[in-house]
């Protein structure tokens, strides 16, 4: 670093042959330089953080790359019959739905173009809903490859586990924070998305549909859950003639609710009013086996010899 002793030159040490005017110019110049060196990062810092601050986790790192990669994996490898889908267009439609917008004023209309591009036919009798039983339901469809949870459809597969939101004053995604449903606002871009896709998933279902419910918690059928609020009410009675529930209890765990409990009867009543038949089974065999894989010790997981 150059030795600038502008202003601190001692009276006893005359510096070189520079004139006084030049010295003043140099002082001013370097003073400005120092000011700029300090001010620019501060300015950038301040300018870069005008984004709103929310109580929830921010957009997932590398959101767009993940989204696009998943779209191609799904349409080229998982379900190649969808190989004609345009993932670039789909990715664009997804981000357009929330970028540069108020993340607390999201509407289903925002996601309409995306929904249209990702339309998919799930075969009849192959729809599997779930409520408070995510891991078990997905373990089951991983093994039973012809059944579909929402997360086994193209759009669900793309968005599963990701978080996203934008900001009205920026064209960037907000990686710092996103609205929390409870503490910030319920019409946030994330929740609105899942409501919209759940609604469509239910509307598209046909034949006999299934749901995996958790019998080891109270309120097995929860009217406030996405299944209870959105999916049940968007099944089309002219297409879906029966919903079959599988109430699973944790192996060796508490049997809080079962097919005969009041919350499940509530579900039955709601469906009856909608002209959809209902049947229920406790601890459906194949899924019980899956539970035992995780925990094979209890005697109920031993094979009958």
């Amino acid at each position, binding site marked *: 670093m150059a030795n600038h002793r502008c202003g601190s030159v001692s009276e006893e040490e005359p510096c070189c042959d520079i004139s006084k005017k030049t010295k003043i110019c140099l002082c001013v110049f370097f003073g400005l330089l120092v000011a700029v060196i300090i001010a620019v990062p501060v300015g950038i810092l301040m300018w870069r953080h005008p984004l709103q601050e929310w109580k929830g986790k921010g957009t997932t*790192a*590398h959101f767009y790359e*993940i989204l696009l990669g998943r779209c*191609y994996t799904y349409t080229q490898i998982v379900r190649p019959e969808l190989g004609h889908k345009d993932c670039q267009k789909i990715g664009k439609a997804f981000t357009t739905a929330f970028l540069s917008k108020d993340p607390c004023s999201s509407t289903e209309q925002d996601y309409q173009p995306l929904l249209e591009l990702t339309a998919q036919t799930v075969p009849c009798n192959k729809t599997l809903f779930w409520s408070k039983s995510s891991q078990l339901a997905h373990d089951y469809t991983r*093994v039973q490859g012809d059944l579909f949870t929402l997360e086994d459809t193209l759009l669900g597969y793309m968005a599963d586990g990701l978080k996203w939101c934008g900001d009205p004053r920026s064209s960037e995604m907000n990686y710092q924070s996103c609205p929390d449903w409870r503490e910030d606002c319920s019409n946030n871009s994330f929740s609105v998305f899942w409501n919209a896709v759940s609604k469509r998933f239910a509307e598209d279902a046909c034949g006999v549909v299934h749901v995996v419910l958790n019998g080891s918690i109270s309120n097995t059928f929860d009217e406030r859950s996405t299944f209870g609020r959105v999916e049940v009410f968007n099944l089309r009675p002219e297409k879906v003639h029966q919903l079959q529930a599988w109430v699973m209890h944790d192996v060796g765990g508490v049997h809080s609710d079962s097919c005969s409990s009041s919350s499940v009867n509530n579900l039955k009543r709601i469906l009856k009013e909608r002209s959809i038949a209902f049947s229920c089974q406790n601890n459906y065999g194949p899924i*019980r*086996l*899956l539970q035992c*894989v995780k925990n094979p010790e209890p005697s109920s997981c031993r094979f009958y010899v």
Partner: protein
Amino acid sequence: MTARGLTPSLLLQLLVVAGAAGARWRGQGTTPHLQSIILGRCAEYDALVNPDPRGRNCTAIWEAFKVVLVKDPCSVLPSDYDRFIDLSRHSIPRDKSLFWENNHLLVTSYSENGLRFLPLCSVLYGRIGDFLSWCRQENASGLDYQSCPTSEDCENNAVDSFWKRASMQYARESSGVISVMLNGSEPSGAYPVKGFFADFEIPYLQKDKITRIEIWVMHEIGKPKVESCGEGTVKILEERLKKMGFQYSCINDHLPVKLLKCVDHSTHPDCVLN
């Protein structure tokens, strides 16, 4: 996220396409949008599965992978992936390694996306290549989307060399209790004497990092038991491990895995629970 794997109808489609008039090689052509898929998988691994505190550079990883895409399709060596492995490698937790032969889908289901076990397809470099195919055209510089060579076409093909290199790395980084899942209903034998496990994994196991090796010989529900522990090729494997100085044990139809196989056969007499 799970790649669901090849359904039987897809496999048939692929065989038909590869066998169609004009296909140069026996194997599946390059997966379309290979770059986006690989970048996406790397990004996902870094963001959601196993973030690297030092930060992974997925672009650099892709650039390192890309070098094989300009090479003659029958001149790709395992060492061509050295840089790629260098950038994408990460440690494997003790006791989580799961080796296998002839039961890819079962291993994927059982390992629960890396939660229960971490087989090769669940570590970053394995994840990147899982279910993908790639090769350059024989006489031109672009990628061949029609077909790619298999080992029957030529030994030094891009995909086989990838898995050889990845397998070597995976074996080197494995420690603690090593698990091996074999298919005891496979007509040609549960332990392929020439295969990825035999040639590119066992030789690279680090004796000083491994406590013992547990072999599970699984049998298909309702199908013949071709081999079990102590028999045929399983015996060959056991003797090889013994000679190498490894402590090992062998179990027929390891219970948690059998329970998983039964999910698809829940009404079969062998699958009835108490």
